[in-house]
């Protein structure tokens, strides 16, 4: 099954192998980051990576995954700010457990557009030293 974490794991495996080869060393860990809208589940990504890395120089590499917040840009004042999409809005008198309204950190407007999600970045690799 080619779940989407597997596709990400394949790109990562290639990038980590390239970088490690430049330094002629075996990689043992890698720090990566990506925007939250990638919808990456850490457990699934690590599982997929472990599976496809078997028998390659990346076997045993531990992944450290950072999820960058989603950002929006205010349509009124152009301020960019962090958007929490999933925060529940607990006004149970109204309509149950609905969503909080993301607001511009500068002018308070709720009219914003989502900025492109943070890219997948290979931040750092750890190499084995003898």
């Amino acid at each position, binding site marked *: 099954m*080619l779940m989407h974490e597997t596709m990400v794991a394949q790109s990562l495996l290639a990038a980590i192998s390239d970088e490690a080869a430049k330094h002629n060393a075996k990689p043992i860990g890698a720090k990566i980051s990506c925007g939250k809208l990638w919808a990456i589940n850490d457990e699934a990504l690590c599982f997929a990576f472990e599976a496809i890395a078997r028998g390659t120089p990346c076997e045993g590499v531990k992944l450290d995954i950072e999820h960058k917040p989603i950002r929006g840009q205010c349509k009124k004042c152009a301020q960019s700010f962090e958007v929490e999409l999933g925060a529940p809005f607990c006004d149970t008198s109204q309509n149950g457990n609905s969503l909080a309204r993301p607001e511009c950190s500068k002018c308070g407007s709720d009219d914003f557009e989502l900025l492109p999600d943070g890219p997948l970045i290979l931040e750092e690799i750890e190499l084995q030293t003898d």
Partner: protein
Amino acid sequence: MKKINVGKKILSENEKYAFENILFLAEQKKLCLNMISSPGSGKTTILTRTISELKDKIKIGVIEGDIQTDIDAERIRATEAPAVQINTNGACHLSAAQISAALKKLPVKDLNLIFIENVGNLVCPSAFELGEDGKIVVLSVAEGDDKPAKYPAIFAKSKVLLVNKIDLLSGGQVDFDIERVKVDARRLNKGIEIFSISAKTGEGMADWYDWLLKSVEEK
């Protein structure tokens, strides 16, 4: 142990193909919309009705994504519109490379609008850009009114929300607070266009068609 700073953006294969698709669709001046929903929300029925009722105004082609079978492409072809079926064989979303290949199989020059019907799934397809002009999220009333709160990403990213199967509301068989859905979707995405429709009875479809025709015109 030695740490090396890399800081390199990994341009996934998907992004490369998505960019090619954007260029191709811009050059051809064809509008392309990516429809995303849970399985069974009525995407194919919305498409067959839309194609039939707009056939004198615009020509529509469809790229169908399913894990298995070409049942949906056959339903589209029954309307005489061209359709290409992609079977993902287990993958939970369509990729931009699959769209690039499918675009080559469609008579793009003869079309005004290309719909992509993504694999039924509210999570994964929202993370994969295909090069489309916009996403259309479909929510049927039987799925419940808590979906924007539970799956915010797709509602935040879509241009249009189609609330489908509203014919089920009149009999009271389904508890679905349509106002809650509208409020939640607009909290995530103030500009989202929301149309309440029944692809079965045709109720509310006229406003959706107006939006489509205007969008085709503007591309």
